[in-house]
């Protein structure tokens, strides 16, 4: 049968089957099993309405259990087995942790997890705040939102053209290299390649420290809910994070000062180890910013007008209003956006596969797993790496479930 015809039949069978199932099962329940008449009419109605929800839920639950819940356990089980199906216990995990490519993917994934959600949320917040204030904001929003509709593979093609590199003698067709060749070591180069990144790094550190301080303050205010040891642990952890960020920033500032850029030479951006990760991340940030912008823009509009008016009367400037009045009030939404993008990042696979396929030290977990599963055909190792992804998602899963439970009570 031709696939298109098959598709049509499947739509008919699927839709018809669904409607038929629900109609018929309800009919059987009401007319045959527990008819609402006769001597036990009342009891029958109660029984029928106890069963009915499960009739409505059955197809969805069956599919969910089979297609999402069962595979989690099956994958966990598979990860304990070797190539020929023999039980090997934790050997796959041990072997995996010994592989340099796995360590590389884990390291890169951590980088992705920090940079992409942070950058997307920051750009999204910026775009949301700026476009809310101008008349043509909706057009601007829709254009920034547009990459949402483009597939990761399509976006990879788009960015591959931007990163294209040719020999120095011929004209560059990649936008990035064409811009790069404009830098010649003069004052413009100093401004854009030294001073601006320098200031950005400092701004980032200040922001990180301020956020940590803000979080510590928030925790301190609610410390009644925590026991002392937990609080102390949290503060120590936050301090460590801040110290690590400062240490990393000082290192990168020093590197920036010492850096002698290779002016006049076109760069193969995707083959520069470490930095190429950022060029891949740019693709995902480009796609996800629209999502962050849409959600944050709705949240910003939901900020009560009177809090802003009160701030204006008190003489706050626009920046104070944004950072001290609006942002704290939409913190919950920012967290939601952040976690949603985090999950997308953990699953990212298409971009790396299409642009570098994990070469030049750009491997990530999802592509590593695909490599193991379908190129080396090592299902045990592949499943083990899939379990690592699951492990990384689990905190967010627990957090979401906890929130929904709280909301439903």
């Amino acid at each position, binding site marked *: 049968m031709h696939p298109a015809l098959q598709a049509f039949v499947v739509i008919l069978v*699927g839709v018809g089957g669904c409607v038929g199932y629900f109609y018929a099962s309800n009919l059987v329940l009401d007319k045959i099993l527990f008819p609402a008449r006769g001597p036990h009419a009342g009891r029958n109605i109660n029984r029928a309405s106890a069963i009915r929800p499960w009739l409505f839920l059955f197809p969805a639950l069956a599919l969910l259990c089979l297609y999402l819940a069962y595979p989690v356990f*099956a994958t966990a089980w598979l990860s304990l087995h070797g190539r020929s199906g023999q039980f090997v216990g934790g050997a796959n995990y041990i072997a995996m942790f010994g592989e340099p490519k796995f360590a590389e993917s884990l390291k890169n994934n951590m980088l992705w997890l920090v940079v992409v959600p942070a950058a997307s949320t920051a750009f999204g917040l910026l775009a949301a705040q700026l476009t809310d204030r101008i008349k043509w904001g909706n057009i601007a929003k829709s254009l920034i939102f547009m990459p949402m509709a483009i597939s990761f593979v399509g976006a990879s093609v788009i960015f591959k053209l931007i990163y294209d590199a040719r020999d120095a003698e011929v004209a560059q067709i990649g936008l990035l290299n064409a811009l790069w060749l404009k830098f010649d070591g003069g004052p413009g180069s100093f401004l854009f390649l030294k001073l601006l990144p320098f200031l950005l790094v400092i701004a980032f550190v200040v922001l990180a420290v301020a956020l940590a301080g803000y979080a510590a303050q928030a925790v301190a205010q609610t410390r009644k809910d925590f026991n002392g040891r937990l609080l102390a642990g949290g503060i120590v952890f936050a301090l460590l994070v801040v110290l690590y960020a400062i240490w990393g920033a000082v290192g990168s500032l020093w590197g920036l000062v010492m850096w002698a850029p290779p002016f006049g030479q076109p760069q193969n951006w995707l083959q520069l180890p470490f930095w190429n990760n950022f060029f891949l991340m740019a693709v995902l940030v480009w796609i996800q910013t629209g999502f962050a912008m849409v959600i944050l823009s709705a949240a910003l509009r939901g900020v009560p007008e009177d809090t802003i008016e009160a701030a*204006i009367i008190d003489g706050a400037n626009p920046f104070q209003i944004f950072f001290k009045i609006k942002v704290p009030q939409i913190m919950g939404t920012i967290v939601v956006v952040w976690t949603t993008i985090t999950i997308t990042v953990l699953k990212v696979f298409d971009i790396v596969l299409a642009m570098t396929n994990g070469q030049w030290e750009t491997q990530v977990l999802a592509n590593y797993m695909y490599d193991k599963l*379908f190129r080396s055909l090592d299902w045990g190792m592949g499943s083990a790496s899939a379990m690592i992804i699951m492990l990384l998602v689990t905190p967010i899963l627990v957090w979401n479930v906890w929130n929904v*439970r709280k909301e*439903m009570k």
Partner: protein
Amino acid sequence: MDNIAGKKPALLWAVHISVVALVLLWVVPTFGLLVSSFRTGDQIVSSGWWQALSTQETQQPAIRVAGDEVEKDGAFVIEGNLYETTGTTISRWGTSSREPEAYAPGETASLDDGVTLTVQPDGAYVLSSPATTAEMRLPRVFTTASSPPEFTVNNYSNVIASPMAGQSIGQAFLNTLTVAIPATIIPILVAAFAAYALAWMEFPGRALLVAFIVGLLVVPLQLALIPLLQFHNWIGIGKGYLGIWMAHTGFGLPLAIYLLRNYMVGLPRDIIENARVDGATDFQIFVRIILPLSFPALASFAIFQFLWTWNDLLVALVFLGTGNDQQVLTGNLVNLMGSRGGDWEILSASAFVSIAVPLLVFFSMQRFLVRGLLAGSVK
């Protein structure tokens, strides 16, 4: 919020300029590929797409003199034009790659064996040889020429009809459509019934089920690949359309149920209670009242699911197989990037064929998409 910015024109200008910069940053990448997809392969490699509208003076690739020779005045002469189209103006030319700019247009070059070659500014050339040129390797002409902007739709007709990586983009387009449409429609109904039960029916364990579905919302589908492939092989459907429809249905359900439940909970209680009092069964309430009222939510989910299935690569690679009649657009594009990575005229046109439909859906139904996004993120 205008009241803040409105008082400070300088700040408002800064906002306008920043938004213009942001929009440009977000639009330029796609626009560049779009422009490239309408240029010929030679144009794409000889200048950046941002120069597509200006007249270019560039070194053109070498063109070999070819044509039928005519005997004229005791010499064998070949006449012709280097270019198929008019409008190109040659500024310098040469016959060896070491000296591609040796001659001015109109000059005559003397080559080996008494052969002479004259090239005019418009590309017309006259090759004259004392002996027949039949056995001779005709010279190549290197030109530095300025050509006017030129756009073509040939790239599109090429990629749609002719196979580039196993199969044509046109066929891949049909395959993608075959995957996406049933995979969009089927989960909607299944999810709608479940969402109704979770929103409006009282039964023990309801809250637990909602939590279960929220949990499944974030389970990476990477975990499902091998167990489901084994399952599909076990029940005998193996790799194919049936398998991928089922897989997409399963993977789309958590979001569908979550989104629809959130929407249905917000429907007015009175309508449903009244219908119950009037003796309507749950099935009737669902079909006659809930389903029509939930149209916006159904539309949001449908758009989501369609974009996701259309743009998906991983599920298609694993569950559909890689046969020529089964490759989807994204798979085809990845193959092209591998095998024809430098042929930007093919890549750009193929990429645009694959993103045209999602973009169309996006711009025509953006309202529903935004609404779905707002309802679908876990709050």
